[in-house]
């Protein structure tokens, strides 16, 4: 890691990320773009919560 990043923040984001990745595509019908939108939002939420 090149920069110091709060570990709690990373853990929080990883939790959200894995939950999104675990959702079976054939169950939700989510496409790749939709999944990435969710991850982007999760990242944004994590950072906003911290600020």
């Amino acid at each position, binding site marked *: 890691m090149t920069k110091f990043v709060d570990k709690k923040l990373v853990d929080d984001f990883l939790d959200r990320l894995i939950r999104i*990745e675990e959702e079976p595509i054939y169950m939700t019908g989510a496409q790749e773009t939709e999944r990435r939108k969710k991850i982007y939002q999760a990242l944004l939420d994590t950072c906003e919560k911290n600020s």
Partner: protein
Amino acid sequence: MQLKTIKLLNFRQFYGNQKIDFSTDSEKNVTLIHAENGVGKTTLLNALLWCFYKDTTTKFELPENIVSEQAIKENKTNASVEVIFLDKGKTYSVIRKIDQENHHETFEAFKIETGNYEKLQSADVFVESIIPREMSKYFFFDGEYAETFSSSNNRRAVQTAVESMLGCNIALQALEDLENIRKKLKKEMGDASKNDQQAKIYQKKLDDIDDANFILKQDLSDKNKKLDGKISTKEKISKSLRETAGAKEIQIQKDEYEQVLKRLKNERANIEIEETNWIYNDSFGLLSKKISSDCSEFIEDAKTKKLLPGNIAYDFINKTLESEICICGRKFSKNSQEAIEISKLKKDATTQLRHDRFIAINSRISRLADLQNTSVDSYKSIIDKLSSQDELIGTTELKILDCKTKLGGNEIRDIAEKQNAINVLDEEIAEINMLIGGIKQTITSNEEEYSDWERKLEKRLKHDKNLDNVRDMLSVLEASKEFLEIELSNYREESRISIKSQVDDILKITARRNYHSSIDETFNLNMHYSDTDQVVAKSNGENQLLSLAFIASLVRFSADRRGQSNKLLKPGTMAPLMLDSPFGQLDPTYQESTANFLPNSSGQVILLLSKTQGAKKVLDALNGKIGEECVLISEVTAERGEKPLDIIDVGSEKITCSIYEAEKDRTIIRSLTGR
């Protein structure tokens, strides 16, 4: 997870309701399914895959035709497969049904408690939680393609297998998503500083590299698909070549049998001569039994009465009369009383010729009596010889017929053609691999260049307060990405070492020489001589042995990982190992040693074997481990003609696997358990 029962209804050749019970005994954990080619071994494997995932192997031709031909003839369009299995002490059932005519399909899962079926929500998710789809192909495995794992140019297959069993897919997908979002954030940064000309230039460079890499990655994906296609074609031709090469061996065997048949027929002709000689020389002994016995009686009677062979010789009496001197020395005259008395003796006297004849007849009759005792035995011996010779001739003729059937359409002249096709494919594979290497290098170099431009852009924009939020997001994203990469790399390394160690353990007890394996960082699977560490130029059999050892190690590795999951990795799975024709390329010694280690590779092992695969040594090695056993029998409505009977030896029993002139065309399952 353990399979308990599979129930089939009109699934391909399994017309009607059929079922197989699998062994769930922890000691006798092997279920043995015997079947000849085309009867339904591969169909059974695919029935499981179809039921669980609506998936089939590449070997399963026309996968859209699920309903049995016989059922269709009878206007039945429904088929189904139900699998009942145990998991963590509970019994479940999953059932997939299809109505081919109405294109209607259902898939349901149930928990079975005290005979009641309780429907579960979302059967797909449930099955996925028991054996994830990507892991399934290593549990339900087509053994005939096993050697492809360890053949050259197939690193991707090994890598995919390890990553599937490691449950890396979530982490890999997350990494790909994060990289995509990272680029999006970088672009946001570039777009946010539209007034900065220099930043715009940097962003343009980044966009160009992105576009170039997008095209390159598409090209890479195409090339990989092409490579997979070539490898698959090569495997198919290699298989066909092996069959053709096998045909050559069968041809040689057939020639040998024909030579044996010729010799046996010559020997039979000699026995026939022996029989003729017996008729000439010995048969009258039997035929004249009555006459010789009467003669013997007559002679004995005559001898008793001193009528035979006659007491005074006829010639001697004549000489006495001519000499007119009695044997006592007294003289007598021709017409004297003495001469008359001596002349009377002629009545009972015999000539030398008659005496000799009597001796000869007596001796002949004695010989006839002896012949009566020996000729029966000698005739029996000739008949026995003829009978065993006929049996040998019959067996050899059957073997020749079997060879002719096996030869089928395999033309020996195709060998060179097929070998040439393989050589051409090898060159094409090498060329595609070279192109893939080139593309990967360009992508890597582009990515390095991309990082440089990114750093420049970042430096340029680092004082832009408007971008602080994006920078924060990027920091968290990059830290998460780095964490995932390190975790994945550690797990890959751990799994590589663990699988290698298990493969080595298996090679130690199975391989003829001392070998050890290697799986390098690029997942190149190889076998080495233990003493010199040189890479072994593997035969087909050794390739298959190494691949089977690899599959067994993966399955064991997955079982060891049960409960060891973390956020990134799917938990390991304990599942049955079902192997279709696992002994194809192995010689009898390797077959035996593989049969020894397979039962220990999983809690439940299901082996689908043909006659050649289930050779005596294999069955002996599995003895004591078989909990359930069944045979698939083909019933056909056609006449037998010259087709072989397909008899398999199961223990002391011989079972006919092809029944002709049957009522229906179908495969039936006959359980051999408890026979």
